[in-house]
């Protein structure tokens, strides 16, 4: 379904701010699989997600999704195949437009937008049903501006929008990190439900070890723009939050060496 081949990305090359954000990431994802990405700050996990979404183009490497080579596709063109939920609850919805209008925009993700009515009658009925299924009481507020809703409600709607048309790939970028614990819980439950029901191929970045362990069928841990650990199958099934924290500790200890020395040591001895 998704195949990443040796992705490299350097930001601000040749300047003192040079960041080697992705250093040869390769990854294959089966249809319907749910991959959780964890890693320390600056490990490249969000960069990897953005590389797939097309926020920037990678320097070298290949990205294949659903039979298309999308490496050079622009962000908006990839949206035909990809649904996204952002970390910031304000990023995924247009605040001054109504709930119904936002959903109507999502109902044409990646399709041509012409002179047809955005909110035609058939769609209105469907809107009400699918919003009611969120169990947030929003079905009676379809004409209210989204800006008046809470972060959790907006994130739930963004999730609904991202999956309104079944995407080939769903990208979740720490989509509960900015929510209060209760809303985060609700959004996670909803994500799980939607992903299960539609059997969506999913990439999720998270800071929460709990989420990493309880969601998905495979975990990768990134560090310095590389995939450090890749847990799947029985190994993944046995893993507990403490094990993941242990691996973070390991990384932290290694970081205390000079990065260049660490790389040299690793090349020579590991």
């Amino acid at each position, binding site marked *: 379904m998704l195949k990443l081949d040796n992705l490299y990305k350097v930001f601000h090359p040749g300047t003192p701010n040079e960041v080697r954000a992705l250093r040869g990431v390769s990854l294959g994802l089966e249809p319907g699989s749910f991959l959780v990405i964890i890693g320390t700050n600056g490990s490249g996990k969000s960069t990897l997600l953005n590389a797939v*979404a097309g926020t920037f183009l990678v320097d070298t490497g290949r990205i294949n999704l659903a039979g298309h080579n999308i490496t050079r596709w*622009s*962000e*908006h*063109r990839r*949206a*035909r195949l990809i649904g*996204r939920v*952002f970390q910031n609850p*304000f*990023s*995924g*919805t*247009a*605040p*001054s*437009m109504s709930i119904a*209008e*936002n959903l*109507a*925009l*999502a109902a*044409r*993700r*990646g*399709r041509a*937008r*012409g*002179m*047809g*009515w*955005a*909110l035609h009658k058939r769609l209105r009925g469907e809107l009400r049903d699918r919003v009611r299924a969120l169990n947030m009481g929003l079905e009676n507020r379809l004409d209210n501006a989204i800006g008046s809703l809470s972060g959790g409600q907006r994130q739930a709607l963004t999730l609904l*929008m*991202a999956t309104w048309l079944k995407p080939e790939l769903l990208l979740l970028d720490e989509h509960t990190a900015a929510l209060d614990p209760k809303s985060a819980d609700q959004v996670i439950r909803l994500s799980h439900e939607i992903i299960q029901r539609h059997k969506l191929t999913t990439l999720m970045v998270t800071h929460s070890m709990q989420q990493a362990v309880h969601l998905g069928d495979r975990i990768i841990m990134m560090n310095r723009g590389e995939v450090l650990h890749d847990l799947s199958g029985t190994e993944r099934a046995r893993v507990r939050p403490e094990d993941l924290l242990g691996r973070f500790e390991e990384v932290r200890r290694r970081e205390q060496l000079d990065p260049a020395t660490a790389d040299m040591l690793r090349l020579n001895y590991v």
Partner: protein
Amino acid sequence: MTLLLGAFTIGLILALLALGVYLSFRVFNFPDITAEGSITLGAAIAATLLVRGCGPVLATAAGFIGGLLAGATTGLLHTKCRINGLLSGILVMTALYSINLHVMGKSNMPLLNEVTLATKAEHLATRLAGSSHDLNVFGWEVGIRDASMLVAVLLFISILGLALYLFFRTNLGTAIRATGDNPQMIRALGVSVDFILILGLALSNGLIALSGAMLAQYQGFADVQMGIGMVVWGLASVIIGEALVGSSSLGLLITGAVIGSVLFRLLVAIALRWGLNPNDLKLITALFVFVALVAPQLLRRLKRPKVVTTPVP
């Protein structure tokens, strides 16, 4: 009475300018200065074509298309060449000054004996009324030319406002509004933000050029200087409209821009009648917009409770 009718008519014609400014400044949050050149471009194209014997409807439409192209150019400079939005507008506006002179061949082009939209409206009204005498409306003598022009413009603006409202509710129209509201979101939903911005600026300047084309025909001349200060003028109209209707629903906002434009023109006409020096007009318009932009911030600051600072022991 003629003064009042004239103010109404010009206010309605400039409502197109207000709608264009609303689109760029409010919907896209894009400070588009191209307007000052494109309103003149619309007037220049229409006037030149009329003088050459072209029909008024065609001449007006050509003015509109000229505006579309001007706006699209600004959009292209900003999106494809990565030039700052304000600067893109300034570049196109400056270039348009020369282009407008070339279109007209001189700095002022009078429309004396040409068949314009204004003479057409008058002609039609005369035929309908059966005579070319002044009309008696509620005891006032009203010139048939003024009355017919006002009615025609009112009709046209109503239809155009309604069309714009309906357009903003289509798939394309909602995508345009969402692009101004949250570009990141609409990109993730598969819309090219660059394309929509170019399209939106084209539409905005098309409306503004249309306003210029109609203004030239109403006042009977096109002048290369007529665009100066028009952005601030349009902004003043939009601000008055928003103050009247509150910035809530789309239909109200469009209506508000139209009413704001008429009201602003009326205020100016009355002020001029009371002896305001016409030379001060632009200064006062700018001051008005300045106050309208700053007043809400000041009010908010006054309302906020004072922070009680405890002295450090």
